[in-house]
């Protein structure tokens, strides 16, 4: 009872990266709380899932296997979670801050009147003192996320309501297999007992899933451009540098909003999280929401004409100068000196 649950996102019978990352995070939180880690798989033909996830340290895997449960639609998945959670009374539930997680999480939290914090960048256990009502709550989940226009980070807690729910973006937590031979129990539920035909209100007429158009998430080197790049034309300089050193191109939200580059290259709290060995930030000021997506890069180089740009605080190398002047130099010196 009162365990930590992770909702598994499943596409093509594979558990999503983000769910695997949450299992690893969930395992360590469960150890700290002295509770068990449980996972919920909802879909069709799920026989391989146990093998995939139990090595992350899953103590109990709940399976809801039914043809009607795939492709994902909101209501049957929500009903299953709501009914399961009424029985199991979890203390914490974690989901990916993916489209599915952001569609499902609020529906479930509303039905259970439990709090939900979106897009957390850090989760830790701690106590909370409600000064007004003079009550202390032990071992709550601190749900930490950047908020409001940058510069602030909020710690959110749900003292009274359970489960404490949070979503986390892909790439924010690290995944790691705990033990290939971990012993976990599989509970096969009769899915139909947990949802009704009324939940099948949405009909999916057609679906197109493509592989990600870029390899930003896994790229060992990222060259990212910000608003300071100035124009779509100047962004070609960023692309040229990236091409030359075998890097992927990333961007800040301001650069995406300005139309310099496609949205799927946005890095940050509301974009992709990357942790490359080298991150070159060009004309990016370094607001908290951007840092949230790249601050774990091993080496950071910044190119900015403002020597005081906030991003310089996390940089290993600070190049003070304009994109127009610095980037071509880097390209030509690379060409001269490589091989």
């Amino acid at each position: 009872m009162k365990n930590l649950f992770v909702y598994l996102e499943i596409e093509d019978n594979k558990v999503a990266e983000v769910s695997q990352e949450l299992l690893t995070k969930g395992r360590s939180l469960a150890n700290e709380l002295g509770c068990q880690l449980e996972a919920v798989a909802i879909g069709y033909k799920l026989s391989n899932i146990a093998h995939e996830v139990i090595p992350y340290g899953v103590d109990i895997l709940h399976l809801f296997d039914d043809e009607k449960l795939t492709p994902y639609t909101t209501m049957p998945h929500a009903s299953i979670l709501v009914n399961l959670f009424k029985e199991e009374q979890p203390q914490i539930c974690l989901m990916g801050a993916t489209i599915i997680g952001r569609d499902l999480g609020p529906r479930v939290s509303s039905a259970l009147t439990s709090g939900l914090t979106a897009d957390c960048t850090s989760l830790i256990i701690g106590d909370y003192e409600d000064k007004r009502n003079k009550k202390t709550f032990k071992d709550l989940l601190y749900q930490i996320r950047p908020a409001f226009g940058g510069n602030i980070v909020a710690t959110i807690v749900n003292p009274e309501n359970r489960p404490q729910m949070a979503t986390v973006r892909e790439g924010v937590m690290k995944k790691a297999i705990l033990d290939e031979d971990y012993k976990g129990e599989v509970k096969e539920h009769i899915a139909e007992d947990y949802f009704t035909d009324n939940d099948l209100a949405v009909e999916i007429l057609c679906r197109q899933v493509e592989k990600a158009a870029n390899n930003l998430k896994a790229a060992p080197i990222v060259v990212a451009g910000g608003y300071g790049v100035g124009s779509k034309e100047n962004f070609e300089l960023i692309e040229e540098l990236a091409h030359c050193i075998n890097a992927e191109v990333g961007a800040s939200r301001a650069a995406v909003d300005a139309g310099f580059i496609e949205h799927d290259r946005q890095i940050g709290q509301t974009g992709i999280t990357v942790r490359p060995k080298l991150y070159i930030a060009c004309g990016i000021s370094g607001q908290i929401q951007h840092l949230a997506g790249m601050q774990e890069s091993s080496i950071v180089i910044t190119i900015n004409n403002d020597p005081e740009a906030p991003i310089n605080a996390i940089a290993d190398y600070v190049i003070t100068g304009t994109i127009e002047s610095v980037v071509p130099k880097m390209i030509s010196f690379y060409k001269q000196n490589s091989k």
Partner: protein
Amino acid sequence: MTYKMIVLAKQVPDTRNVGKDAMKADGTVNRAALPAIFNPEDLCALEQALRIKDQFPNSTITLLTMGPGRAADVLREGLYRGADKGILLTDRAFAGADTLATSYALAQAIKKIGGFDLIIGGRQAIDGDTAQVGPQVAEKLGIPQLTYTESIESIGEHSVTVKRQIDGGVEIAKVEFPALLTVTAAQQCRPRNAKFLMKYKRALTPGESAAQGKEPYPMDNPLFLAEWSVADVGADIVQCGLSGSPTKVKKVENIIFQAKESRRIEDNNQEIEELVVELLNNHTIG
């Protein structure tokens, strides 16, 4: 065919243009320095509703917003753009609401409006980027939801078919009325002055009329903006505002990043070449 639509719109601080004066000396956010705007994706929600109304002119669009008195600006802008009616849900007891308490209040107001086919909201509001209120309103009303809608593909007598974004792609989904959609900015909104319904700039809530020493507009006048309180929508006060919010803010801190030991490099050939060579030699690049 005619459709009865409710559009959810929120007034938000324009966090996209946070300037230097947005932070006070003590490190807190200076809300007054940020202009209050119609949440961008809510404009897209209104746009989708207007497209349906273009096609089926007898359809109606009711704009609903919850917020302080000045949120009536959102209603005026909505009417100006072509909505038919505006409702401001406002009460001190709504203050401090998290997404759950907000969705409870909105759902109560929607029950009072009643008899709708479609509720359309933005995917998320730029002040928090949570994307929770839409699905929570749908749950409270017990109706299906389609989030991340990019466009409405077709609308029939009893159902709507939409194209929506999914992780790594798109899907076409169909749902019967009543249903709730949340929309993204995938489609361009019509320009602001496409319809010059100037008179709507004069629309007022009864509270605003009184403050200006004017007679309130009669309720059937399109310039009348309804103003509903907790009692008007029959809401349970405990489920509203701060007391109805399970999430509490434990603390808010300014982030001061631990400055790394960083090396300064000037923009000249020698220093940049040295850097590139160093990165090549230690196999960071190349």
